[in-house]
């Protein structure tokens, strides 16, 4: 019955002989207590992390994302060819040659080099949009779901307003408004400002569910302030689906940037971007489809990696899906 690990607070009253019930360490309860203490602490996120490491999808997606991130940060590691130097019109839509594994664009630039150097644009847009939608979505969703009543009515209707306009069209209008200032930040803003309501909705629904939990009622009974309950108990327990949705929406943002560039309202053609390259390649689709295929492939694989990662995270965080497998 040696229970040396239990807290000092338990022992003190016993030493003073001030109570009429057996000391916890002397009862059968001590066994249960001891087992609990020696066991590794666990929670939703630790479980999910353990589950995630068993999934091949997680590794495939992770490796692809790391490759893309390295290419974005250090393009020099992948190619020595500068994307815009040495563009010879003689090479226009040319077949692959030595040192230029994917051939040449219409302007005679190296396709492989342009893809590598375009990675950072796509990833930056994806990242900025994600941070933005996450921030606005979490604030709106959390407040609406937790406080309910008029706060919910106001914030949810605000979300509906942005949700009712298809976000590609809204982004086209915004990009037309800022036609003189087209850069990575402006295009991210144009996409993000209409993309957040879905994040807010997911979080709001989850918070409505979590709010009913016993531990929330217990905290209320203990007199913890409403805001503190939201921040300490409700939000950490309802953020899981948001993480999954956000990872997937990062892929959607990358695709949206390419779509806007394709529509001619995206980044200026001087900016290296997969969307611009695909857009410029469309005129030669019949004679030189490879010019269009390669940047599209890079785009699809990157988007695929983030979608796969999001799905793996979602499945790992969902105890129901874990049991079903």
């Amino acid at each position: 019955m040696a229970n040396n690990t239990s807290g000092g607070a338990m022992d003190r009253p016993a030493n003073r002989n001030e109570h009429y019930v057996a000391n916890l360490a002397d009862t059968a309860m001590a066994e249960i207590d001891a087992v609990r203490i020696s066991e590794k602490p666990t929670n939703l996120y630790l479980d999910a992390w353990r589950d995630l490491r068993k999934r091949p999808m997680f590794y495939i997606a992770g490796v692809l994302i790391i490759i893309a991130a390295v290419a974005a940060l250090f393009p020099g590691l992948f190619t020595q060819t500068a994307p815009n130097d040495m563009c010879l019109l003689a090479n226009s839509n040319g077949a692959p040659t030595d040192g230029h594994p994917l051939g040449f664009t219409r302007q005679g630039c190296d396709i492989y080099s342009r893809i590598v150097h375009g990675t950072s644009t796509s990833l930056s847009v994806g990242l900025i949009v994600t941070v933005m939608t996450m921030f606005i979505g979490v604030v709106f969703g959390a407040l609406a779901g937790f406080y309910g009543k008029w706060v919910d009515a106001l914030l949810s209707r605000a979300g509906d307003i942005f949700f009712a306009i298809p976000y590609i069209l809204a982004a086209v209008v915004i990009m037309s408004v800022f036609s003189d200032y087209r850069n990575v930040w402006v295009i991210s803003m144009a996409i993000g400002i209409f993309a957040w309501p879905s994040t807010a909705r997911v979080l709001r629904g989850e918070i409505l569910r979590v709010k009913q939990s016993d531990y929330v009622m217990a905290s209320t009974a203990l007199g913890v302030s409403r805001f503190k309950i939201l921040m300490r108990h409700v939000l950490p327990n309802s953020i899981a689906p948001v993480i999954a949705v956000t990872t997937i929406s990062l892929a959607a943002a990358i695709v949206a940037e390419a779509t806007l560039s394709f529509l001619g309202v995206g980044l200026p053609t001087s900016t290296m971007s997969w969307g611009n390259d695909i857009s410029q390649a469309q005129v030669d689709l019949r004679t030189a489809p490879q010019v269009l295929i390669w940047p599209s492939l890079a785009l699809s694989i990157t988007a695929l990696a983030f979608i796969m990662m999001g799905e793996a995270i979602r499945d790992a965080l969902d105890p129901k899906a874990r049991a079903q497998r």
Partner: protein
Amino acid sequence: MIGYIFKRILQALPVFFGTTLLIYFMVFAMPGDPIVAMFGDRGVNQAVYEQLRAQYHLDQPFIVQYFIYIGGIFQGDFGTSFSGQPVSEVLAATFPVTIRLALMAVFFEMLVGVGVGLVAGLRKGKLFDNSSLVMSLLLISTPVFVIAFVFQFVFAIQLGWAKPTVSGDAGFTELLLPAIVLSTLAVAYIVRLTRSSVIETSGQDFVRTAYGKGLTRSRVVRVHILRNSLIPVVTYLSIDFGVLLVGATVTEGIFNVPGVGRTLYQAIIRGEGPTVVSFVTVMVLIYVAVNLLTDLLYAVLDPRIRYGK
């Protein structure tokens, strides 16, 4: 039920005004003078310019313009595009095309999405399931314009099965290729939705009971599994129909379909305020209506859900 519908319509009002105000503001903020643009390179006479500005209420402050416009809509007047054509005529010309395209796309989504999803769900973990999973992930992560180009290149140009672009009257056979392209993304989602729904339903007690009382597999699948799995799918399909009605800018652009999406895109690029705002207004109305119908449909399909009290 009536009370619920009334409440929903009441809730939709602020969304309607908010959305139209927002889009009106954004169009208002677009650079460039549309009247100068109307005259192109020739330049415009000052008196004509003033008169046109007054005619289109462009000399009024922003908020007055908005209310003049909204007031007109409630009287059935959707304004006049800068080319002089009433916007209602443009709407009447483009919406039927988009509706036809959307109906065809939803048909493909149902046929392929539910079919593949059902088989994948019943053969969970087998080759067919895994390959359909990979295919749907690929479709989801490929931008629609790339799919459109590939389909146009392979089926229209290389194989010659369809025309690469659609003519002015946008007939049924011409719209086949754009409709398939348009449906690909939703097909991918529906395959996954149907699959997980079928797997979940297959584990239910009533399915075991059905097998237990000796029903054939095909009957269990048809009557017990499929019917109960379709509730989320039907909901998704109806929402997607609403999205498609709002127009597919990219697909319509590539295949030259004279529908809502392409017309709206051109109007935005030209800075045609009235056309843009009118289209978006109609879109919001459709969006609100489709959402309401979806919720009601949900109640019809799933007896456990009841609105009202």
